[in-house]
C-alpha cells in the first residue's frame, strides 16, 4: 500500500465514522462537534488532492464560522435531547433507511468499483493538480474567468444579511 492510500483510508474512516456518529447522537451539541471532526477529515482529504487553499478555507469557513453559528443557535434555544433514536424507530424510518441504502447501491454501481467506464482514465491525479490548488492560481482564475458569479456572491450575501436580520430580530417596528 502506498502512503497516499494509507492517508486516504485513515481520513475516509474518520469522515464516515464521524458522519454516522453525528446523525445518531441524541444531543445536538455532540452532533455539532462530530460534524466539525468530519470537516477536519474533509480538509485533510482536500490536502491529499493538492487543493491547499480549499482545505484552509474549509476549516476557516465551515469549522470556524458556520459551526460557531450553529452552536450559538443550539445554546440560544437550549434544547433538551431528542428521545433516543431507537424508541422512535418506526416503519417510516426503516423505509427511509432502505431507500437510502438502495440509493447508495445505485450510486456505487454507476461509479463502478474499480474498473471499466469512463473513469478508467482517471487512475491518478493530473500533473496540473499541484499547480491549480495554490492561492496564486485560484486568485488569477477567480478574478478573470469567474468574475460574474463572484459579484453575484456579494448580492447573495447581502440578501442573507437582510433576510436573517428581518427574521431573527425581536420586534418588528
Amino acid at each position, binding site marked *: 500500500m*502506498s502512503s497516499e492510500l494509507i492517508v486516504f483510508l485513515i481520513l*475516509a474512516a474518520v*469522515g*464516515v465514522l464521524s*458522519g454516522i456518529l*453525528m*446523525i445518531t447522537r441524541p444531543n*445536538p451539541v455532540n*452532533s*455539532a462537534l462530530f*460534524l466539525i471532526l468530519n470537516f477536519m477529515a*474533509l480538509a485533510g*482529504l*482536500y490536502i491529499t*488532492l*493538492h*487543493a491547499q487553499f*480549499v482545505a484552509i478555507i*474549509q476549516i476557516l*469557513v*465551515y469549522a470556524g*464560522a*458556520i459551526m460557531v453559528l*450553529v452552536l450559538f*443557535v*443550539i445554546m*440560544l434555544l437550549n*434544547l433538551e435531547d*431528542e428521545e433516543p433514536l431507537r424508541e422512535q424507530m418506526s416503519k417510516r*424510518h426503516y423505509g*427511509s433507511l432502505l431507500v*437510502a*441504502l438502495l*440509493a*447508495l447501491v445505485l450510486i*456505487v454501481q454507476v*461509479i*463502478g*468499483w*474499480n474498473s471499466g467506464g469512463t*473513469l478508467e482514465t*482517471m*487512475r*491518478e*491525479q*493530473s500533473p*496540473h*493538480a499541484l499547480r491549480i490548488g495554490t492561492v496564486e*492560481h485560484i486568485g488569477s482564475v*477567480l478574478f478573470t474567468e*469567474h468574475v460574474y*458569479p463572484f459579484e453575484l*456572491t456579494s448580492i*447573495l*450575501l447581502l440578501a*442573507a444579511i437582510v*433576510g*436573517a436580520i428581518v*427574521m*431573527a430580530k425581536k420586534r418588528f417596528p
Partner: protein
Amino acid sequence: MVPIHYYLILSAVMFITGVVGVLTRRNAIIIFMCIELMLNSVNLTFVAFSAYLGNETGQMFVFFIMAVAAAEAAVGLAIVIALFRNRQTVNINDVNILRW
C-alpha cells in the same frame, strides 16, 4: 496512487449518511447540519474531479458553494429562531400547519 473511484464512493457514502439523517431525525438544527454534510460530500466530488482532470473550475465551484452554505446557515438558523419564538419547538413533527 489512489484512483478517483475511492473519492467518489466516499463522497457517496457521506451523502447518503446525510440523507439518512434528514429522513430520521426530527430536530430542525440536526437536519440543517445533515444538509451541510451533504453539501460537503458534493464539494469533495468537485475537488476530486478538479484534481484528476487538472481543471480548476471544480475548486471555483467549491468557493461559491461555501458562500451559498454560509448564506444558507445565516437564513436557515434565523428561520429556526423565528420558529422557536413562535411555536416553542424545533421538532419538525410539531410544525405541520401547512400539511393538509
